[in-house]
Structure formats: structure tokens, C-alpha cells
């Protein structure tokens, strides 16, 4: 049994909130750079160049790359031989979010109730996904998620007979419907299988994968490539102003499902695919 202080969790979450918002991942940066090389649209190339310049400013001046500094989505993998001392886990995470958003001059974008819509003032509560794993460490991933791209996401319960073509049609339909709204170039997270909420969870989790990585299942990896190709033929382009680079990646994650079901979720992510992690 190893003891980890709740205050260490708070400090770590606070730091990760700031880093995630200030520092665009190297994988995304490289994907945009290679996008400039193949973008046919002149304004599309300009937009991609602006996103790189924006990322450099954010990183060097420690300001958020986007004013929408997101809903703090926090993934926790907790070793089952860990004892958390000095406080309750969720309180420790939320205190870290409040501290990070305050210290980092990040925007507070969370309202108390979907209909009353009064701002909570400190960007809490976080969305927390907790998984118990073997061992005596805690892995923390902070993934601030912007509202503009989240709003373009969708879940649909397909029929098993819809198969791979049905999944591809739904993903493409969702991306086309989103058009310029989610600030393309986008990263498309796809969750297949499980129940309705697991499909949505997998779609979100797939966004944590490195841009350019492939699903380990060769068939799913092939579907990722096929979908990326189809999405980049829509013509939506950077900022929706026309072009080839509509998406930087399609990441699929799958899970077993019921004999009657084929749940599919599409989680759209803008280029600011923010996620930073630490292990305690």
C-alpha cells in the first residue's frame, strides 16, 4: 500500500490544466505543418500558418491557445494499492481545476445548471473518469474540451446490419453537418460498441491518442485511414473556407457490444487537442 497525498493530486491537476491550455501537442503541430505542404487552397495554407503562429505565441507567452479553455475532463487511473490521504479524491481534482484556471488566467466556462446557466465562477466541477488499475500509482490526464467542437458531436444507435458502411456514413454525415463550426482542421474521435454511454466515452478517450497513431486492430486502422481520406475530400478545409485539410486524424476505439446493437459516437475535436498527463 502506497500513500499519495490529496494535495499532490490538486497541485498536479492545476499544473496540467495550465500546460494543456498553453502548449499545443508536438503531434498536432507536426500534423499541421505537414498539412500546409499538401493544402491546395491558398487561404487554407494561411489559416494553418496562423494556427502554428498562434501555438508559438501561446507556448512562449504562457497564454491559452484558445479563449475557450474548455470543460476540464480528467481521466484518472488509480492503482488499487494506492491510499489517498488528506482528502477526498474528487474534491482534490476540483480544487486543482479551480486553482489552475485561476492561476493560468483561463476562462471560466461552466454554468451550474443547463437551464439556469449561472457561471460557477471557477470552471468546476470537472468531468472525472476514474478507472481502477493494478499497481500503486495514479495516472492523471487532463483534457480540457472546448464547447464549439463538442457541440458538433453525435451519438447514433445503428443496426448491426448497417456494418462498416453504416459507421462510415454516420461519421461523414456528422463531419459534413459540422462544416466550418468546430474550427477545422479537426480530429475525429469515433467510439464503436458498448452501450450508448460507452460509445461516447470511447470517442472522447480516442482523442487522447497521438495524432498519427493507428488502432492496433488492422481492420479498425483501415477504417481510420478510409474515413480520413473521405473527410479530406469534402472540401470543407481549414476554417471551413475550402481546401483539403479538413481533418488531421480519425481515431477509432471499439468495445464489445450487445447482439442487437451497434452504438456509434463521433466526438469532434478542434486542432487544440489539449491533453497533458502525469504519473504520481
Amino acid at each position, binding site marked *: 500500500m502506497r500513500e499519495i497525498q490529496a494535495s499532490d493530486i490538486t497541485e498536479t491537476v492545476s499544473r496540467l490544466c495550465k500546460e494543456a491550455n498553453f502548449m499545443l501537442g508536438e503531434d498536432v503541430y507536426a500534423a499541421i505543418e505537414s498539412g500546409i505542404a499538401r493544402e491546395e487552397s491558398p487561404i487554407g495554407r494561411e489559416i494553418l500558418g496562423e494556427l502554428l503562429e498562434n501555438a508559438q505565441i501561446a507556448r512562449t507567452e504562457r497564454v491559452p491557445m484558445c479563449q475557450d479553455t474548455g470543460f476540464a475532463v480528467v481521466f484518472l487511473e488509480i492503482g488499487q494499492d494506492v491510499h489517498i490521504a488528506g482528502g477526498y479524491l474528487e474534491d482534490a481534482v476540483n480544487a486543482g481545476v479551480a486553482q489552475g484556471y485561476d492561476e493560468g488566467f483561463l476562462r471560466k466556462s461552466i454554468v451550474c445548471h443547463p437551464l439556469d446557466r449561472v457561471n460557477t465562477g471557477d470552471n468546476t466541477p470537472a468531468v472525472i473518469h476514474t478507472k481502477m488499475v493494478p499497481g500503486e500509482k495514479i495516472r492523471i490526464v487532463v483534457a480540457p474540451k472546448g464547447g464549439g467542437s463538442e457541440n458538433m458531436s453525435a451519438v447514433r444507435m445503428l443496426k448491426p446490419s448497417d456494418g462498416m458502411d453504416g459507421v462510415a456514413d454516420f461519421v461523414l454525415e456528422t463531419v459534413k453537418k459540422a462544416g466550418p463550426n468546430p*474550427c477545422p482542421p479537426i480530429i475525429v474521435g469515433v467510439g464503436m460498441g458498448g452501450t450508448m454511454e460507452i460509445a461516447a466515452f470511447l470517442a472522447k478517450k480516442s482523442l487522447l491518442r497521438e495524432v498519427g497513431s493507428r488502432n492496433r486492430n488492422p481492420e479498425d486502422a483501415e477504417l481510420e485511414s478510409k474515413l480520413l481520406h473521405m473527410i479530406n475530400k469534402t472540401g470543407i478545409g481549414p476554417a471551413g473556407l475550402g481546401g483539403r485539410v479538413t481533418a488531421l486524424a480519425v481515431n477509432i476505439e471499439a468495445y464489445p457490444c450487445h447482439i442487437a446493437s451497434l452504438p456509434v459516437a463521433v466526438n469532434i475535436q478542434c486542432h487544440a487537442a489539449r491533453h497533458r498527463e502525469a504519473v504520481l
Partner: protein
Amino acid sequence: MTEIIKIETPLSDEDARSLRAGDRIYLSGVIYTGRDAAHKRLTGLLQEGRPLPIDIEGQVIYYVGPAPASAGRVIGSAGPTTSGRMDAYAPALIALGLKGMVGKGVRSDAVKDAMREYGAVYFGATGGAGALLARRIKSCRVVAYEDLGPEAIHRLEVVDFPLVVVNDSAGGDLYRDAVEVYGRM
């Protein structure tokens, strides 16, 4: 590269009607921020027949909820939010003389119709480039609804704020044209 047209606020009817989808713009002068919650309040005032906290005539509204300014800065990151959420409120403001809107993403037919009828223009700013765009903002102060935090109405002074005309007052639509050109190739 297309020539960049420099314009200053407030916009006249002629300014707004002369711009065409695809035009590249550097906008300078005073603009106002406003997003969901502020628009809801403005519309509430209009429905009650009460005056608005800002004079909307000839003005440009930037759909943005800026990040807070850290020490020594005018404003935090300040890129556009998705304009479609303001579609329910925009036609009434356009009818009152609003000449420009800055945001990202598609507008409804009702908004485009109002733009044609009253002569207004919808500009796109680069979504996701909030740190870069903030450099063109020279002053910022809250002029209404401070309790809304990032959703308050801020008065911004901008210099050469980079925009592209997405929808013009003659029915031009850059998003539609873009997909027609690049979606076919």
C-alpha cells in the same frame, strides 16, 4: 494574394453593402463583444421596449467570450465563438442597424435574409487563433452585464483585425462556395 480592404467602424450602409463574400478585411475601430447570455438579455430589453445598453446603429458585434487578461495584457485569448448560437437573436439587432457580425460557422437563412434586407455583413475570424487575434486588440473594458463574466459586453478597440467576409448583403456565401470548389476536385 487578394488585396486586403481596410475598413473602420462604425460601418455605413454603403460600407456594409459594398463588401462581398471572400473579401479580405482589416477592421479597425470600436467593436462590441456579445455571445449567448448577453444576446438573450438584449433581446429581452427589445421585447419589453426598453433601451439597449449600447447604441447598435452601424456597429459590429464580435461573438467572443475572451479569456481573462493576465498582468500587463489588454485581454486574454480572444478568438471567435460559433455564430449559429446567436442566430435566434441576430435578425432583431440587424433590423435595428447592426451592420457587422464577427464569428465562425454557418448562419441561418433568417439571419442571411435580414442581412440582405437591412444591409449587413458577416465576417469570419480564424477559429482557434485566439492568442494571435488578441494582439490586434488595443483596449478592452466591460460596458454592460459585468455579472456575466466572459459573457459580459466588452467594448474593444481593434487595429487591423484580420477578417474574411463569409456572408454578404447580396446573398454571397463563402462557406458554400468553398465546398463547391474543393468538394468537387
